[in-house]
C-alpha cells in the first residue's frame, strides 16, 4: 500500500498541511467557508516542533494497528484491501481506547458534535492526501512501501 513518508529535514513548520487537512475534512471543502463559517475543524495531521526541528505526523496505518485491537465498538477498522485504518463515525462511542493505544498520538478527540475519534483517512477519495499535495517543500511524500 501507499503510505505517507516524512522527510523531517525539509519540514519548514508552515503548517499548511494542517490547514489543508482541516479544509478537506470540513463540510464545505472550501478554505474560506471552512475557516470563516465552520467551527473547530480538527486537523488529522499534526506538526511537532522542537527548536528548528519539525515534522508533520499523521496516522501511520500500522500493519498491526493497536487502535483496531483496542476498539470496543468495532468502529476502528483496517481495510484488508487498501490497508487504510478508518474510524466509522456512526459506530464510534468516544471511549478513547484508541487514543490510549496509539503509539504515535495521532488519534484525536473530536468533540464538535457527537464524541468521536478523529484520525487520518489518507484522503482516500483523492489521488494524493491533501497534506502531501500541499506541502510546499515536499517534506511529505506519498509512495509505496
Amino acid at each position: 500500500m501507499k503510505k505517507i513518508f516524512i522527510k523531517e529535514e525539509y519540514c519548514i513548520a508552515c503548517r499548511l498541511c494542517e490547514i489543508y487537512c482541516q479544509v478537506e475534512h470540513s463540510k464545505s471543502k472550501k478554505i474560506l467557508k471552512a475557516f470563516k463559517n465552520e467551527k473547530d475543524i480538527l486537523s488529522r495531521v499534526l506538526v511537532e516542533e522542537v527548536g528548528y526541528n519539525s515534522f508533520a505526523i499523521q496516522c501511520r496505518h500500522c500493519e498491526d494497528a493497536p487502535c483496531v485491537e483496542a476498539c470496543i465498538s468495532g468502529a476502528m477498522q483496517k481495510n484488508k484491501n487498501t490497508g487504510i485504518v478508518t474510524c466509522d463515525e456512526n459506530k464510534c462511542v468516544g471511549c478513547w481506547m484508541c487514543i490510549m493505544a496509539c503509539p504515535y498520538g495521532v488519534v484525536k478527540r473530536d468533540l464538535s458534535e457527537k464524541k468521536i475519534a478523529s484520525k487520518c483517512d489518507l484522503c482516500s477519495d483523492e489521488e494524493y492526501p491533501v497534506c502531501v499535495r500541499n506541502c510546499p517543500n515536499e517534506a511529505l511524500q506519498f509512495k509505496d512501501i
Partner: protein
Amino acid sequence: MTLKLNQSEFEIIRDKEKCISCQVCVRQCSNDVHEYDETEGVILSDSSKCVGCHRCETLCPTGSIKIKKRESEFKSNANWTPEHLKNIYKQAETGGVILTGMGCDKPYPVYWDHILFNASQVTNPSIDPLREPMEIKTFIGRKPDILEIKPVKEAGSDIIKYKNNLEPQLEINIPVLFSAMSYGSISLNAVKSLARAASEFGTFYNTGEGGLHKDLMIYADNTIVQVASGRFGVDKNYLNNGAAVEIKIGQGAKPGIGGHLPGEKVNYDVSTTRMIPEGSDAISPAPHHDIYSIEDLSQLIYALKEATEYKKPVGVKVSAVHNIAPIASGIVRAGADFISIDGFRGGTGAAPQVIRDNVGIPIELALSSVDLRLREEGIRHKVSLIVAGSIRSSSDVIKAIALGADAVYIGTAALVALGCHLCQKCYTGKCNWGIATQDPYLTKRLNPEIGTRRLLNLLNAWSHEIKEMLGGAGINAIESLRGNREHLRGVGLNERELSILGIKHAGEAW
C-alpha cells in the same frame, strides 16, 4: 537624536475578507513582520520591517496578502531622488557604509535589450531543431595553434586522431555554467542543488571562495574550484577534487573590493569547509597579496597547474573594468586556459552599495572589446571566454555567444530558479527562501531535490530556446555562432556603441 525616519519601502495589504488567521505568514517571516494577536484573533503586520521578499505572499493559502511599493512620495526632485535622501538619512544615523546584495539595479543601459538576433529567409534555409540534429555542446579550455590530424588503425578500422596533445578541456552540454557562489554566502542546500543539477545536465558549478564541503566531493567531475584572495579551504585535495581551477581576481558587483563573511555565519560546517576557526570573520583581502603583476599571476597559474599535474584547465576570473581588453590579453599570455569576465551587473551576497552601483562596465561592451582585442592579437583560440553579470534569459546567452563568448555563467538566474525574489537583503543572513542564510530554521526551506529539479528545468528550457533560435538562423552548432557578429544588429545605439560592440545597426545589410 531620537528622531528616526522609519519610512518603509513596502506596504502589506491584507484582505481581511480572505485572511483566515492561519498564521503561515507569521511562521514564515524571518523579519518578524507578522504577529498574531490572540485577544483579537487577527494578524497584525508591521510594514516597516518588510524587505519585499514575497515569502508570505507566496505561501498564503488564501491569497490574502499583497506586498505593494509604499506610495508615500517625497517632494518630486529629479536631482535629489528618494534614494539619495534615504541613504543620507541612514548614514547620518549610523555613520556606516551602506551594504546591499545582488547586482546593480540602476537604470544603466542594458545592451542585450538593444541587440537583435537574425533569422534565415529565402536565401538560406532555417533548421527545425526537433527534426534535425542541433549541437549546443561546447568545450572550455585552450585550443591548439594548429590542428594536425593523422589517420590511425584502431580495432581494424581507420579513425582520425590528433597529432598534438590537446590541452585539458571542460565539456559542457549547454554553454551555461553556474557561477561562483560560495558555501557560506549561500546555504549548503543551495550549493547541493547547483552541484546536482550541473552533474545531471553535464555542466559545471563553482565553489566560489567557500572551500569544498565533504558532501559535495561526489560532484568533483562537475566542480570548478575557486582560488581567491583569502585562499579559504585551498589545499591539494581541494584542487584535485574539481574539474577545473579558477583564480578569482575580482567580482563584477564589487571590483577591487574583498569579501567579508561575518563570524555569525561561520558555523561548524562552514568553518571546517573553509578551514578557519568557528565564529571567526572570513576576510578575503582586496588583492591577492602575491599578485601584483601579470608575471605574478602567471606564477600562480603555473603553481596550480603543477599541483593538478596539468590535467585541469586553470582560468582567471576578473571584473569587467575600463581596461579589460589589455588585462585579458595579459591573462592569456600568463597562461590561463579560460577567462571569466564578470560585468558590473553581476550579483553578490554583500557589497557596499556605492561600489556595486558605480564601479565597472557593462559585460556586453567588455566581452566585445576583449573578443576583438584577442582576435587582433591572434590569441583568441588560446583561451575560452566565459561571461557573467546578469544573463537573464536564453536570448542573452545567444547574444553573448554571437558577441564572442564561449559560454556564460549564471548566478542570479540560478538563484531566482531556486526561489530568490531579489529583495537584495542577502547580507542580513535572514533569507526567507533558505538561499543566502546559514540559519537552520531557514536553510531547511530549500529542499535540494526541488532545487535540482527546478534548475534542470531551467537548463532544459533554455537549451530548447537556444536550439530554436540557432535553427531559425540556419545554424546547427553553437560553435558556429561564436563571435559571428553578422547575426546581430543594434537598435537605438550610437556609432560609438556599435563600433565597440562590432555590430551593424538594424537596417544595415551587407
